[in-house]
Every structure is written in structure tokens, then in C-alpha cells.
């Protein structure tokens, strides 16, 4: 008996020791993990999460020109906003803008990706050209198109003139301004969309095409039955990103039209910008920003829900 007890004692001692070491290990693990993540967490806290809650908070107040809250108004900013024809118009414009730009961007880029996915001499050069608009900033692109849309000197009206058509006030005619902004945006976004879609095409298993070829399937049959279904995850990704990008459009509006003519091209981000940094109405601008936030949140969720059913995952 007396010889057993020290062993048990030792065993208990050992287990306690293991526990202590384990605990210590867990603590240092936690500490290490937090240290590695701390820089990102702090910056996300300061520049993403705090501003989001601060925006919600501000949307219930009136503010002075410096942005300090003055009067609590509850939901008044929201009530005012949804009865403000200019804001309602900017919402309508934003949706219209998505419809004008997203399908066209994706279809054109898909076409470009399909024709540059062939094994042809010099194809690399074409791919580089199609990607190039991705490297062109919104300021530079807007300046290019500002000239193209110029009513008298601009190339587009000169071409119309050659064909005997009447010149168009691209940026000043309320009917055309949104189309002009959309054309600029589509052109700018082609580069990125093309690059992603081409990557998607290149990752499709070539044996699928080979077996279709043996069966004697035609080019368009393969396109419809193999390419598009296999590409659907990439297409889904590209469509989501394009919609979100359209919601965030600002630079081309600021340079090309400043929201005009008659607020015809006033999109939501431009509206927020003007309300906050031109009119210094930070309260109502914050209410608009919350609408933008919810719109993008809903769009992402909707895309996930709708997209999932039609998307082909490997």
C-alpha cells in the first residue's frame, strides 16, 4: 500500500502539470493569434465598423457644418429623404444604371473572352488589349470620353455628321446623358470582367470539348452546352461584382456631368457626396448612406439566393 500511493500522487501531479501546460499553450495560442490579427482588427474597427455605426447614429440627427450632432430628429431624415424627389430620382437612376451597364458589360466581355480563348497566332496581343482598360483610371477614362462626347469637336458627333445624322448633346441632353455615362462605364469595366472570364474559360477541362468533337457537335452547340454551364460560377462572380461596382459609381459622374442635366445622372454615391460635402447636411447624407449600405447588402444576398440555383458548381 505504502508503495503505491506515491505513484498515484505522482500521476495526479503529472495530470495537473499536463493541464497547466495545455492551458498555457492555449493562452499563448490565443495571444499569438490576436497579435497576428491585431493590426487588421484595429484598422477594420476604426475605418469600417465604427464608421458604419456612426453613420447609423448620424442619420438620426441634424448636424452643424463640422459634422457635430445638434438636434435629435429620430426618423425625420428618412421621412424627408423618401419624400425628396431628387433623392428618389437618384435611387431610380442607380437601378437604371445597373440595368444599362451590367448586362452589357458581361455580354461584351464574355464575347471577347470566347473569341480570345482560341489557339491563334498573336492571341496574347489581343488579350492584352482587351485587358488594358482595367489599368485606366476613372479620371483618365472620363477625360477620354469627355472629348469623345464633346458636342462639336468630339469624335462621336463627327462620325454622326459623316453619316448625315444630327449631332447629339451626349452629356447635356437629359435623354442621352445616362447612356453616355453607361458607355464610359462599360468600356472601363470590360478589362476586369474580360480577365476574370478568360481565366474561367481557360480552367474548363478540355477533354469535355474533345469528347463533344468526337460526337460531331458544332461550335455553338459546344458554346451553349459546355462553355456557358461550366463558366456559370465565374459568370455569377462577375455579375455580383459588377452590380456592386455600379452601385458605387462616382468618378465618371463627377468629371463628366456632375449629376446633371436636371439630376438625370445623379447616382446614389454622388448624391451622398453632394449632400455631405457640398451642402454639409451630414445627417441626411448619412441616411442616404444607410440606404446604399442596405441596397448592397440586399443585392449580395439576393444574388447568392438566386444565383445558387442556376450556377453549376464542380
Amino acid at each position, binding site marked *: 500500500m505504502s508503495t503505491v500511493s506515491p505513484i498515484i500522487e505522482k500521476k495526479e501531479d503529472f495530470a495537473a502539470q499536463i493541464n497547466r501546460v495545455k492551458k498555457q499553450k*492555449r493562452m499563448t495560442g*490565443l495571444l*499569438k*493569434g*490576436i497579435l*497576428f*490579427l491585431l*493590426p*487588421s*482588427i484595429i*484598422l*477594420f474597427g476604426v*475605418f*469600417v*465598423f*465604427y*464608421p*458604419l455605426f*456612426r453613420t447609423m447614429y448620424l442619420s438620426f440627427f441634424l448636424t452643424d457644418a463640422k459634422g457635430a450632432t445638434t438636434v435629435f430628429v429620430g426618423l425625420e431624415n428618412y421621412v424627408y429623404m423618401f419624400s425628396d424627389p431628387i433623392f428618389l430620382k437618384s435611387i431610380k437612376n442607380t437601378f437604371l444604371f445597373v440595368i444599362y451597364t451590367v448586362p452589357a458589360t458581361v455580354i461584351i466581355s464574355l464575347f471577347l473572352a470566347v*473569341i*480570345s480563348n*482560341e489557339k*491563334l497566332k498573336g*492571341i496574347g496581343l*489581343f488579350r492584352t488589349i482587351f*485587358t*488594358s482598360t*482595367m*489599368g*485606366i*483610371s*476613372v*479620371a*483618365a477614362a472620363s*477625360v*477620354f470620353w469627355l*472629348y*469623345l462626347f464633346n458636342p462639336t469637336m468630339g469624335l462621336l458627333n*463627327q462620325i454622326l455628321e459623316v453619316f448625315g445624322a444630327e449631332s447629339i448633346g451626349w452629356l447635356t441632353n437629359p435623354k442621352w446623358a445616362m447612356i453616355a455615362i453607361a458607355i464610359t462605364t462599360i*468600356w472601363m469595366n470590360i478589362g*476586369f470582367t474580360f*480577365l*476574370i472570364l478568360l*481565366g474561367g474559360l481557360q480552367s474548363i477541362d478540355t477533354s469535355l470539348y474533345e469528347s463533344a468533337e468526337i460526337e460531331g457537335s458544332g461550335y455553338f452547340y459546344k458554346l451553349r452546352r459546355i462553355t456557358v454551364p461550366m463558366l456559370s460560377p465565374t459568370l455569377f*462572380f462577375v455579375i455580383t461584382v459588377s452590380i456592386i461596382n455600379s*452601385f458605387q459609381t462616382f*468618378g465618371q459622374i*463627377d*468629371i463628366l456631368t456632375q449629376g446633371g442635366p436636371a439630376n438625370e445622372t445623379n447616382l446614389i*454615391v454622388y448624391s*451622398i*457626396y453632394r449632400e*455631405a*460635402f457640398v451642402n454639409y447636411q*451630414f445627417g441626411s*447624407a*448619412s441616411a442616404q*448612406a444607410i440606404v446604399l*449600405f442596405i441596397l*448592397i447588402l440586399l443585392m449580395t444576398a439576393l444574388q447568392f439566393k438566386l444565383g445558387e440555383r442556376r450556377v453549376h458548381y464542380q
Partner: protein
Amino acid sequence: MMSVGRKVIFYVLLIISAVLVAGPAVMAIVMSFMTNQDILTASMPTTLSFDNYVAAFERFPLFNFLLNSFIVSVVIMLGQLALSSLAAYAFVFLEFKGRDVLFYLFIATMMVPFEASIIPNFHIIRDLGWIDSYAGLTIPFFATTFGTFLLRQNFKQIPKELREASHIAGIGDFKFYLTVVLPMSRTSLVTLGVYGFLTSWNMYLWPLLATTNDTVRTVQIGLKQLQTQEQLNDWGVIMAGAVIVIIPTLILLFLGQKKLQTGLTEGAVK
């Protein structure tokens, strides 16, 4: 093998598309070498010269703007590389309580568009005294979920046994991260670097708000100034300015095109 007829069709389609896509940029480049006379009369260029470029640099602090853009883009790029590689390391190699919660926190940041939180962000920068400073233009963009996920995808392919082996050899996590993980992930670090530089160089809304004078103003806002001040007359000079703005990013894009193609999709959550 493709038949000759089909080849011809593809080349015709490719060439027409290339002309349309490259058109605006090529036009800008040609105009930047043309005299104002030729531009106004819409004739083909009679003489080509560098006069517009000389004028753009003489009349505007264009060199300063370029330098500012370069500093801002490089600092953001380095900041993003450092922060996202550290975070990605934690998500791949370290196991600790609350890791999943933090992971979802990172995903949540993707739901908050910068434009929707721009008002408090502006006030924060102002209260910190960071208006018209490099800090205000760069630090808000250091932390990126996209970058973290891109690197996380890559770090996952590094065998965990390597870490265990280095632990036995007495190498700590930070040293392992610096001497093994980072060198092994060079390719994706370059991809993220190129992407970070590109997007920072092309930023528009934030530099517009965060600068009130020319000291740290970036070249994109400089281009806007150039355009508004010269609007009616000197398209050659404006185009020269625009061409200078796009050259660095175009070069970078041509060099990194392949890497970006695979990298951009990897950054999506998987």
C-alpha cells in the same frame, strides 16, 4: 486544327473588337502629340511633338502629383501586404479560441462599402489632423479582406508539418512566417502587390476628399484640375496629362496580367 475560313472569321472579330476597345486610349495618345490647331480643325495630325507634355509639366505641379501618387500607392501596397499576410498566417496556421468569429468579422467587412461609411471616415481623418497628409491617404486602406483571403488560399498549400518541424527546431511562429511562409508565397504576394498598387493609383473619391491643396494631392485629382482649368481650349495638354496618368498602371498590368487573372478569383471566399 481550325479551318482557314474559321480562322479568318476569328481574326476579323478580334481585330474589330481590338480597334473598338483600344480606340479611346489610342486616340488620347495620338492627340497628346498633336498641335491644338490640328485638334480644333479635326484634321489628321500634320506634325507630332512633345509640346503638350512640356506644357503639362510646366503649367501644373504634375511631377509633384506623380510623386505623391507613387508614394501613396507604394505605402498602401506595403501596408496591405504586411497586414494581410499576418492575418492570413493566423487563419491558416494558428489555432485559438474565437478564430472563426474573427473570420466572420473579416467577411462582414466586405458587406460595408467604403462609400457608405465615407462621412465618419472623413471626420476621423480630420480629427486626427490627417487631412493633406500621406497618413490620411494610406492608412485607412491597409487592412483588406480580399488580400487576406487571397493569401490564405495560398498559405493553405504549405504543409503544416513544416511548421511542426520548425517548432521542434526551436523556430517560433513569427520567424517561421518571415523565413518560410513569405518566401514560399512570393507569387501571390506579387499578385496582391500589383493589385494593391493598381487600385491605389486609380483611387478617386477618397483623395478628392482627403486633400485640400497640392502638397499631397494625387495625380488623379491633378488630372481633374487640369481638365477643369483647361477645359475649353487645350485638349492636347489634357490628353498628355491623362496619358502620363495611365502609363504606370498599364505597364504594371501588362507585366502582371497572368498573375492577376488567377489571383483575382482566388480572393473570393471559398
